[in-house]
């Protein structure tokens, strides 16, 4: 556990999220236009720390994340938060693979998230400024958000997701196509958020990133959770042949 910088304390969840854990996908079916993606999917994501969802392209990792966020509803089955089918909306932050930023300044993007979350107007400016400083973006506050570099846009997207102090942070390949420097900056914020008590679930293809960040790995293949393992075990002694093939680079597309 990293020693927490006091500045990062502002990433701490507004209320503990542990009462909503574990997240359980119970007999989930999901399909699109006669194409089944998940059939009787069962998975449990619990505990603290960072869970990495890994698997080949097309395995359904992003859809799994969307189901957890309530952006998709299963055709059958349930997504349960500590046994409750009610998604704790407003307590979940989501970062998409391709950041969608408002056609406004950097600061206005964070202020908007705070306004939507119902943070009082008088508190918004200070919190947004603190968040941007934490993400080393304070110098860009007045810049148009969509003119930022890819790494900066994703970092802003991450800070915005953390603005309303979520208890669960869902990240869909947040550093895909970013350079190592931009990736490290993002990983630093993710790790700090996790240290502050935010439950993090990250979809990633990057084994190095999983090794640096994750505590456990959920391995998905052909719409099924094949394995849930501690990160060290997964990387060194993967529990399934498919996971071994994936880690060896022999299982790229489902």
């Amino acid at each position, binding site marked *: 556990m990293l020693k927490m910088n006091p500045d990062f304390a502002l990433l701490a969840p507004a209320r503990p999220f542990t009462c909503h854990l574990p997240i359980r996908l119970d007999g989930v079916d999901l399909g699109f236009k006669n194409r089944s993606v998940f059939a009787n999917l069962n998975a449990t994501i619990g505990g603290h720390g960072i869970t990495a969802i890994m698997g080949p392209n097309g395995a359904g990792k992003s859809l799994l994340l969307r189901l957890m966020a309530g952006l998709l509803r299963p055709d059958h089955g349930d997504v349960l938060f500590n046994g409750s089918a009610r998604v704790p909306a407003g307590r979940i*932050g*989501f970062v*998409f693979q391709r950041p969608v930023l408002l056609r*406004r300044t950097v600061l206005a993007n964070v202020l908007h998230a705070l306004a*939507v*979350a119902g943070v009082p107007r008088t508190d918004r400016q200070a919190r947004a400024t603190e968040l941007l400083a934490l993400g080393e973006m304070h110098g860009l506050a007045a810049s148009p958000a*969509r003119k930022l570099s890819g790494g900066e846009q994703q970092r802003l997207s991450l800070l915005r*997701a953390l603005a309303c102090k979520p208890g669960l942070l869902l990240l869909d390949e947040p550093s895909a196509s970013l350079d190592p420097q931009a990736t490290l900056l993002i990983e630093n914020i993710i790790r700090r958020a996790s240290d502050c008590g935010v439950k993090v679930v990250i979809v990633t293809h990057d084994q190095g990133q999983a090794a640096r960040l994750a505590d456990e790995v959920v391995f998905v293949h052909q719409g099924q959770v094949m394995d849930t393992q501690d990160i060290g075990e997964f990387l060194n002694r993967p529990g399934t042949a498919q996971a071994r093939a994936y880690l060896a680079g022999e299982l790229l597309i489902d």
Partner: protein
Amino acid sequence: MQDFSQAFAEAFALIGTADATLIGIIVLSLQVTLTAVLIACLIGFPLGGALAVGRFPGRMALVVFLNSLMGLPPVVVGLVIYLFLSAAGPLGYLQLLYTPTAMVIAQVVLVTPIVAALARQVIEDLHSEYDDMLRAMNASRLQTIWTLIVDARYSLLTSALAGLGRALAEVGAVIIVGGNIANVTRVMTTTIALETSKGELALALGLGIILVGLSILINAGLFLLKHSAQQRAYA
């Protein structure tokens, strides 16, 4: 009939000397039109947003109906408003007939469907891009619509501009409910129609030149504004 070139010369003289009648007509025209377009935007943008974001039975039918209203014949709108505002009509007691307010009402009825229908299209396009993000933020329907209106602001200016074009060029409705009364309800288009029918081309031409000039000026201004916004990735 006056000589063509003489009419042009007199028209430019009226403009050059800032003729009081000419200025009065221009000011009233702009007051009526800008007020109507402002009200149409205040109604049309949220209405377009609600139709773009909302999912309810009959939505498609409503969209088709709204699109059809874009082609409302101005004289028919003028006639209906006339019937409502005339002494025997349900709103006769307001005594609004033959006033600039009646003209504003007629133009609002004409322009709102244009603004709303174009706004719906613009907002719907943006909604497809923002939908997941706003849902992930747990934004309410109202917050979603407001966010989309704010972020589509430069594209919505084009909707407002289309409405402004319709209102500025409109004759049929305002002449019926306004009556084309000198110094009271006489606007650019109705004056052009009247003066042309009388064979007095100088004032008509002068107003025509101003009308076209205004249209070019407003379009150029909004084009520059939108271009500048695009440079900063705000549009």
